[in-house]
């Protein structure tokens, strides 16, 4: 295969930067803005494509771990939800060992786990364990935010990007 994604993106970006951009001087502001944003988006894609699989595996693992811990807190009060969480965690484990799994497969399970964790927080309203669960979920999610911010950092909007770990560090620490 000659047509690697990286080459396709590289040639497109070079054409846009070196040939199209100079020809746009004098274009209307909204045209220039959209052109520059499209370049930034393609450049982001080129930087993150090699890490996509590792990152999405990491994200799925994070939600599986979070779900398992939340399940222990709510199991007595919300047994049906706890069962759904356990089933979905198992599905996640299967996807992580399935060689042909795609990143959308990881996303699909991670999104389901997000919903189930969310449901647990919602259903805990007014329950004795609510404060403990809410605090735990915030801690867990906050612990994962540096990875999420590092993923988006090439887009240039994070004002503290210099304090974030590199995506290599994020993934190597997790073994992905």
């Amino acid at each position, binding site marked *: 295969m000659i047509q690697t994604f990286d080459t396709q993106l590289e040639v497109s970006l070079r054409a846009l930067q070196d040939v199209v951009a100079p020809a746009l001087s004098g274009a209307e502001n909204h045209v220039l803005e959209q052109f520059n944003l499209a370049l930034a988006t393609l450049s982001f894609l080129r930087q993150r494509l090699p890490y996509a699989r590792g990152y999405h595996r990491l994200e799925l693992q994070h939600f599986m771990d979070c779900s398992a811990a939340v399940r222990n807190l709510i199991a007595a009060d919300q047994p049906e939800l706890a069962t759904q969480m356990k089933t979905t965690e198992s599905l996640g484990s299967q996807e992580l060992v399935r060689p042909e799994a795609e*990143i959308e497969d990881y996303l699909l399970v991670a999104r389901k786990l997000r919903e189930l964790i969310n449901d647990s927080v919602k259903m805990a*309203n007014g329950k004795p364990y609510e404060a403990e669960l809410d605090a735990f979920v915030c801690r867990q999610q906050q612990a994962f935010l540096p990875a999420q911010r590092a993923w988006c950092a090439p887009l240039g909007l994070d004002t503290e990007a210099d304090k974030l770990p590199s995506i290599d560090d994020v993934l190597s620490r997790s073994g992905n």
Partner: protein
Amino acid sequence: MTALERLKASDSREQPSDALIESIRAAYPTEREVDAVFTRKMQRRNGPPFQQITLPRLIDGARQLIEANLGYSVTISEAKWLSGGASKLQAVFVLNWRGFEGNASLATKMVLRTEPAASITESSRRREFEVLKAVAGIVPAPESYWIDEDATYLPYPGIVLGFCKGVAKPSLDADKVSGLGQNYGPELRNKLAPQFVHYLAKLHTIDPQRFAMLTSFDVPTPGSNEAVIKQVNYIRRMWEEDRLEDEPIMEVTYKWLIKHAPVIDHVSLIHGDYRNGNFLFDEQSGEITTWLDWEGAVLGDRHRDLTYATMDTFGHLAEDGTTRLASGMMSKTELFSAYEKASGLKVDPVRLTYYNIYNRYLLLGLIMGSSARASYGARTHQDVLTNYLTALGYQNLSELCDSLKEAIQ
């Protein structure tokens, strides 16, 4: 079916059923007009896909709208797209007309502001039209001329506004998207900052008799938190309808906001997006000529605007490298102190904490909810921008976590 197709098929919000729409409406009651706008948004998702609207189509619709209101023929010239803003389609043109009485000969520069099929801020043109009428003569704002509330003439609802002179960004720092973190520089800042506070105070102390002009707004009852809860539900409903994926921190925040909703002591007209980048000014004199983007206006608690204007997202460090300038103007402490003096209203630290969390929740609903949904569904004229802005989400989520932890402690 590919994995991508399976992922897309799992999203019940992209083509929502009537049952889903109704269940969200019932769970999270909001103001009447918000309910109408959000319901329309959801129903529209099942309609035809968004198609780029051409400038001639838009201008022809504007001409028809104006002629229907005036009762005589007009011509439109010098039409072109207007850049700026992340949510609405805007075009500027010159209207050649005979005035409201039909006996003059006028060439007036105007702006057509209309909706795409979806946007980062789904809002009511009716409310925007009314609020611009209500603030006329109090705060500099575009004059509102005509409205096409039901898209009778335009592809989507729109309004015709007077064109306002001025720039949104100083030439020395003109590359910020939507004015985020806009730095005006020391000289301009000294001129703009007092006006920034002055107009906020004027807006918040507007004569309540003017509220009668705001017929599509629910008017809060002082001493009650009912309106605050509806405004929290406005965000929650947006999040429920638009998000691509769930975020448990949003659920924790929602519960906290409902449980701690403060009563309103003084009903103010709230701009809803009062910050740097949302006003025009004369670069030579430093005079603020126009406040823009009134689509998020509500009647509510002044602390909502105060905390919004002072969010870190919109600020930057001063030349000393340590002082954070809220909206590029002055430190938070200075801003609150100047505001109390100008308005005669107290700034309450407890409500600052509440609305700080409220506004972070709002921003996240807009960024990670509506903005992501609009670009995912290819429903706007600038999907590349709405998609790009989603990258602001995780830092804001991190800041929300910090604020929430402090509040809970």
